[in-house]
């Protein structure tokens, strides 16, 4: 059954091979096509429409998964208010939340978290620790109504990029501490729009792989935010040894 079909496919490829030899390569040579090593999947994708369609579908699914995680919750917002909605959003993603005068609420290893915060009325969220969460531009709209947010930690978030940083100006009145350490998509262009955050006192921009010149960027950010303490690459020292690092100054009250 399969043999005649396979034979036809082979026939088509032979015919094409000969046709290509007459006409020569069609597409203009781009730098991308110079890779010599092609994986089996890429090879199959080049020659079969269906493999290509499947791969495109999987790519699309990946993106829509992230978008689903960052959806907004209009019903909960209406019922409980913006603070509880923001807290729920962060907890669902795997982050931690601290309400004013309360303890930190974290999900356990199974992803479950206590739901007593749903009863909090008019208690603002003071600190959010979204380290490692899949929060992106869309998801930030759940955090931006938190008008009394004082500390935000976005360490190692893979989807936080320059566009997300451009939205942070809405938290300018209250935000005092921001950490962007280890975010792979944040570059110096996003850091430039942090100048709106005039109340910021602590900013952590260490270990940003997309920033081209970390030392220079840190100087420019320090000039931009004169009242803020900027932690970045420790460029004044030589090779770093653990014992030599000075103890950190007074920890901020909302540090987890």
């Amino acid at each position, binding site marked *: 059954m399969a043999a005649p079909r396979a034979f036809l496919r082979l026939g*088509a490829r032979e015919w094409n091979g000969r046709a290509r030899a007459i006409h020569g390569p069609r597409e203009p040579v781009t730098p991308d096509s110079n890779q010599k090593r092609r994986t089996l999947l890429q090879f199959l994708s080049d020659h079969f429409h269906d493999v290509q369609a499947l791969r495109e579908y999987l790519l699309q699914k990946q993106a829509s998964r992230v978008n689903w995680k960052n959806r907004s919750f209009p019903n909960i917002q209406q019922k409980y208010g913006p603070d509880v909605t923001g807290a729920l959003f962060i907890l669902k993603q795997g982050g931690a939340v601290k309400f004013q005068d309360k303890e930190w609420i974290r999900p356990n290893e199974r992803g479950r978290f206590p739901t007593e915060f749903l009863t909090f009325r008019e208690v603002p969220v003071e600190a959010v620790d979204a380290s490692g969460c899949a929060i992106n531009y869309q998801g930030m709209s759940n955090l931006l109504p938190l008008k009394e947010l004082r500390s935000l930690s976005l360490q190692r978030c893979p989807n936080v990029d320059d566009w997300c940083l451009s939205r942070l100006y809405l938290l300018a009145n209250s935000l005092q501490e921001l950490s962007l350490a280890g975010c792979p998509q944040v570059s110096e262009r996003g850091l430039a729009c942090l100048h709106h955050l005039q109340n910021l006192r602590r900013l952590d921009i260490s270990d940003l792989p997309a920033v*081209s010149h970390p030392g220079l960027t840190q100087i420019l950010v320090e000039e931009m935010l004169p009242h803020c303490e900027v932690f970045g690459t420790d460029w004044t020292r030589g090779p770093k040894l653990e014992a030599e690092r000075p103890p950190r100054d007074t920890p901020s009250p909302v540090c987890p």
Partner: protein
Amino acid sequence: MFRRVLRLGLTPGRPNRGLRTRRGGFILDWDAKVSDFKKKIECMLPGKQWGMPYDTSYLPPKQSDVVIIGGGILGLSVAFWLKKMESSRGAIRVLVVEQDHTFFFSQYSRASSTGPSVGGIWQQFSVPENVQLSLFSINFLRNINEYLAVVDAPLVDLQFNPSGCLLLASEKNAATLESNVKMQRQEGAKVCLISPEQLQNKFPWINIEGVALASYGMEDEGWFDAWSLFQGLRRKVQSMGVLLYQGEVTRFITSSRQMETTSGEQVVLRRIHEVQVKMNNSLEYQPVECAVVINAAGAWSGQVAELAGIGKGLPGTLQGTKLPVEPRKRYVHLWHCPQGPGLETPLVADINGVYFRREGLGSNYLGGCSPTEEEEPDPTNLEVDHDFFQNKVWPHLVQRVPSFKTLKVQSNWAGYYDYNTFDQNGVVGPHPLVVNMYFATGFSGHGLQHAPGIGRAVAEMVLEGQFKTIDMSPFLFNRFYLGEKLQEYNIL
């Protein structure tokens, strides 16, 4: 079983693809291949003209449903949206013709306006449709990797700087600026008004003399790398099956028909049947049969329109209304100033048309100025006039930012604007008399930032006959005949 095999492999033109190979195969353009083959066999038979079959792969195809004249950002955007909105895969054959053969791999070629552009995007316009176009474009740019995702290709990195755009206004323009900002906020742009004192606090390096009011975009405004957008678009449209060829359009083969309007007036409707594409450095041309022609030739749209007979008639009639788009030369200067404004500098547009923005981390700045009508530089070449910077741009820069006194010019370049001499706003949509020519040109410097929105509007017009998402009817060609100007307050 044998019948099924036959059906699977040998029937051309089946609606669903089944298991087929991608490179050629039995179904790709089967009819054209058969007719080509027949022609080749014919010329080999005795008694016929001996036409030795030779390699014609550098010539564009003989037929294409849509021919887009101009392979810059607007042309590619229209191609992208046409392919994205087609009803089934491979339903529309699109051909993009670009006259400059160096353009596809070098951003330093100057035939297109995309390469040398400053790359700014802002929502601060006075025409609501322009604001909507900008908002859509910024959404497109933000989700660029969802739109332009190609399997196995690297992600598009636009290097977007979300630093915002600052427009300054003097006493006499302050009221217009205020009403514009109100309209922009209604449309959903995040722009706010700043008083001179607040401006001085925010940006201490600015000199607020003469500034009565300023509008500042807090979000969704800034600048990006036009070339990476262009490369990303090109890769995506090629993967969607759009053919990109180099050639110059020299002639249209058209047919005319006398028709009578409802009011009894006689009009001559024209239809383009063939586009003749001439190859570079040779007299060889390829006639491409087409159904729809899209004029996205940028600064050269006026010449292309004349080829189609637009404007050949008595002045004052619809027949005699030309497409008022012509190339205008604009300079961009790059300078270095170590004491200049810091990292937070937005794209600043001063009262008299001088603008500048930061470039990179190393205290470099890009900027320029739109000259007045009398000072228009000669558009026949792209030579840079260095005195222009000295006399027209530098004094205003120093007056606004005193630390620019010690600046040092690093380089200059020039590019063309597809300048609409009528009202400096774009032309989109079909021509009333040449029924299958659509325009997407004349944006006088805003083409790059509005390209995604314009592409979608033109694709909607071609595929569905009307504008569905953004109503671009104020941009139609008719306004040149009716004399209704669509004035834009500030042109950078």
